[in-house]
């Protein structure tokens, strides 16, 4: 069994890295977004092989919507809608290369030098239950504050895009009125 798990881990690990690399090799915004999603899906699959089914599947579930929204917003705001002119996804090559190499070295050093705790979970633990206890137990204050803040942001966003906008109905245009001096 562990042979299969090891094999799957390496398959997904390689897939995550390769698709992550492809994000920067494509010249289409939609493809870039979905390569990134493929990378996250591979990471989610790794989590599933590590017996964290819930976390892995939730990651996959969340990424579909997020990456689609990202792709649409990029298409909407970029001057070059269909990616007809090859648009490189990489800018400031020197800075990017230095930052990338630096981050890699730093992480590799952490990986090699850090003294990782070795606490194998007893068999029979349910990671979903542990997660629930953690979220609503010791870390409740942190998660609830973050959760309420995010909820407020979401309600605010919906209020901003709702039909009854501040400057008129959304489907008629909510442009800010031009200030004019009245006589």
């Amino acid at each position, binding site marked *: 069994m562990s042979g299969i798990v090891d094999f799957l881990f390496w398959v997904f690990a390689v897939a995550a890295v390769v698709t992550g690399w492809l994000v920067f090799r494509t010249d289409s915004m*939609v493809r870039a977004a979905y390569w990134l999603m493929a990378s996250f899906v591979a990471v989610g699959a790794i989590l599933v092989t590590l017996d964290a*089914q819930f976390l892995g599947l939730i990651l996959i579930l969340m990424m*579909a919507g997020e990456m689609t929204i990202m*792709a649409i917003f990029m298409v909407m705001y970029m001057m070059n809608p269909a990616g007809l002119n090859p648009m490189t996804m990489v800018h400031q090559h020197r800075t990017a290369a230095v930052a990338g190499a630096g981050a890699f070295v730093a992480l590799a050093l952490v990986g090699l030098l850090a003294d990782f705790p070795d606490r194998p979970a007893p068999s029979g633990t349910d990671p979903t239950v542990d997660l629930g206890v953690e979220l609503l137990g010791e870390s409740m204050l942190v998660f609830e504050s973050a959760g309420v803040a995010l909820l407020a942001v979401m309600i605010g966003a919906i209020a901003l895009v709702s039909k009854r906008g501040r400057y008129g109905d959304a489907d008629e245009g909510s442009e800010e009125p031009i200030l004019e001096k009245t006589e």
Partner: protein
Amino acid sequence: MSPAWAVALVGVLLMVSVYLVAVMETIFGLRVSGVRGYGRAWALPMSRAALLLSQRRSVTERPDAQAWALAPALLGGLGAVALTAIPLAAGVEVADVDAGIVLFGAALVQVMVAVFLHGWAANSLFPVLGAFRMAALALSVSIPFSLVVITTALPAESLSVGLIISSQESLWNVVRQPLGLPIYLITGLGFSFWAPLQLPDARDLSGGTSAEVSGAALLVWRVARASILVAVAAMGAAAFLGGYLGPWLPGWLWMAVKTFGLLAILVWSGHRIARPRMETAVKLGWTVLLPLALVDVFVSGALTL
């Protein structure tokens, strides 16, 4: 269950159910259009499939060819994955995962990606508009969908579909959570972009994301779309109607009866309910279904406690 058997089982089940959905669709269509005599409906899907297979693929100007080829296969694969999460009879689970209901949800949410790619890749106006519609539609229905699906896990105190079914031994979830099934079916129609919520592939876009597709690719796309509907109905039967539970008949037969009962309701509604405007559909998701789904969660949660 060995992987080879599992793949074969899911494949055969999907093909048979998709064929039956096509037959049902034909019969309901004939009925509503006032034609009597449905004998023809049984062979018609086969002939249609043969016709599509005889057709060559169409080519647009500079499509995203890989994504275009991938999208139908991805959609069909997602239908199959979603189906693996559902126990077909007592103890017969293709994928015995603890978080089965999350696996199902993850597969369905990815449908949005398959449809978006399908429309985007054709590099043509109406398919792209269909792709945008799918994003808006799927985002509007996904939260109420997830909420009502996860609510069925509350009485079971587990995310496993098997345990969700056995928790309905005394009382089906359709009674315990009366808001659940209607919201689930409406949002499920949205995810499988089936009539009346077929906005991404609607006729006012001349077929939307499939407007530029022909031949085998179109056949695969239609089969894949129906397979999502089958998965939605099967999970509806499992999560709300007690799945394989029932007296007298064998479990798998109960499961089949309930699944096809739901499929009949879904397909029937496509011929009887008008397709809403995009704005109406989005509004329905955010202002009606989402609050109702929240009520469903709170009430069910309080009852469970």
